[in-house]
């Protein structure tokens, strides 16, 4: 009877064991399959993460580069506005040299000999932006070299607008200068830019760009804040509302106040 019980028990155990085996094997197989899929997917996830990082780095470098172009124009402003000189010698080649030097100074990246660590996307797009910027300076030669005429409106803002437009037309990347109350309506911020600009205006001065992936990671948006310097105030400072040399009412801005931002959009499927 005991044996019977044992046999029964054994049989029950054996049946239970088979059931358990069945319950164990199926999930194990499923797990193995999932593991296989995951192992196949893992490098892809890694690649996507790398790709996102490269795009973010590229965006930051592009905004820096456009801003460097603006800085170079600002530095040469008195030369450009010199009514006594005809040929100013501010050629696209001179501009290029100064931009590359300043870019190296700001980022440590020598674009004359781009380092291998620089993402290929950044290399390609920075070269396109350099060409677009040089084209703007080339197109402006007639205006720059007019003798007897002081103010020519070739200023960081007009340079930036044109360089950004030329670059955006030649790539899948969109760059623009934007501000909450723009003089040029084409620089009007979209809803995203307006939200970020308003947030930036309340925060302390920072050179760190705002970087954000939107549309389920399909589009990178970056905004690099630009602040008013002393030189900007001749046109954008006080007295507020009084027309500046180009005929626009002064904004009454102060040094260090948020002037606007360089906004950039890069889709994730850049490759």
């Amino acid at each position, binding site marked *: 009877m005991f044996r019977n019980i044992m046999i029964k028990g054994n049989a029950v155990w054996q049946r239970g064991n088979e059931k358990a085996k069945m319950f164990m094997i199926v999930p194990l197989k499923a797990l193995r399959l999932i593991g296989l899929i995951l192992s196949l997917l893992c490098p892809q996830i890694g690649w996507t993460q790398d790709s996102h990082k490269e795009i973010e780095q590229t965006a930051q470098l592009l905004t820096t580069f456009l801003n460097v172009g603006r800085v170079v124009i600002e530095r040469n402003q008195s030369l450009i506005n010199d009514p006594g000189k*005809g*040929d100013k010698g501010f050629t696209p080649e001179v501009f290029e040299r100064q931009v590359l030097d300043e870019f190296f100074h700001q980022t440590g990246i020598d674009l004359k000999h781009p380092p291998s660590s620089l993402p290929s996307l950044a290399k390609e797009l920075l070269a396109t932006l350099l060409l677009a910027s040089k084209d703007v300076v080339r*197109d*402006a*030669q*007639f*205006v*720059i*070299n*007019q*003798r*007897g*005429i002081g*103010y*020519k*409106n*070739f*200023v960081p*803002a*007009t*340079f930036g*607008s*044109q360089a950004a437009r030329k670059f955006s037309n030649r790539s899948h990347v969109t760059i623009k200068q934007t501000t909450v109350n723009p003089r*040029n309506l*084409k*620089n009007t911020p979209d809803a995203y830019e307006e939200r970020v600009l308003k947030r930036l205006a309340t925060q302390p001065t920072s050179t760190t760009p705002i970087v954000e992936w939107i549309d389920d990671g399909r589009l990178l948006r970056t905004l690099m804040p630009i602040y008013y310097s002393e030189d900007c105030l001749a046109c954008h400072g006080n007295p507020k509302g009084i*027309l500046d*040399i*180009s*005929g*626009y009412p002064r904004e009454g801005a102060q040094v260090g106040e948020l002037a606007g931002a360089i906004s950039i959009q890069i889709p994730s499927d850049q490759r």
Partner: protein
Amino acid sequence: MGVCAIKKFLGSLILTGLCILLQGCGLVYDAVELIHPLTRDELSSICSRARLRVGISVEPFRPFVFPAVYTDEGIRVTGLDIELIREVADALTTHCGGSTPIVPTLHVTRFPDLFIKMNEGQLDLFVSSVSGTIPGTRPSGLWFSPPYFHGDGVAAIIQKPEVAERVWQQFHKQNGKGDTLAAVQEGFAGLTVAVQKGRSSHLYAKANLKRIRMVICDSLPASIETKDPNIDVILTNHSILEYVTKRVWQNWRLLTQIDGTPLLLTQEDLSIVTSDDHRQLQWFLNNLLLRLEESGRLKHMRRRWVEAEYAPTRRATNEGLPLEVTHVPQHYDQGQCRLAEGQ
């Protein structure tokens, strides 16, 4: 014998036919041209290329043409002449059916070269505050439109008050006769007077002011800038001088009558210039200018550019026209001044 006669008959028939045809070729062509023009007229050419090739002077004549500035849209020029060019282009767009806008292409060139380019067929027309009413300003082969700007004329600007006094003294001597030419001839005698090459001021001085030291300059800014020799008087259009003495070169002032009213040395009306052969375009411009006059548009343009307060750069951004970069000199140099020959 029979075959030979037939051959002779056929040969003479072909010969006679050829003679008739060759002689009548011109007539046949003319007849066809009359019914259905084989060569396009200039208006059809403008419509088909959707471009109006307009010449403007590189030397800025504010407020007609302001110096080119850089804007968010690229290089732009603005001014009364530019607004007029837009009007012509808009009217041409309507004339051409309205589906494709007629884009004005600005060929910026030195003033004397405008006439050459026009004669060479490189331009459809040019607008550069040109007068057709001053003797010597109408070269053959060109047509000057009815005026788009009335009541202008050569005027003078000075820096030294004694120059004005010299002229006023002459007016006093005339006892109210009001002979401006005589007063200016006496008042300017021995003075150094700058004029712009080929413009009406140059033609006026050459014809009427024999006792001046005439200095011929490439542009108005060059007249202002030159220090060798020192300039006593600068002559050019009154509307231009009125604008620049108020807003650009405020250390120069307009020479006026004793009572302060404008002193005009000539009477001038400004015209659009096109080729003498462009009959269709001439009629088009004629009718357009009449319409602009009747509608008060020309008066409005004059008020906007001559009398109103404004910033040219902002207007250039909003309503300026781009330059055809391939048609601009490498860089604009306002040029030099030199003493006229024999002086």
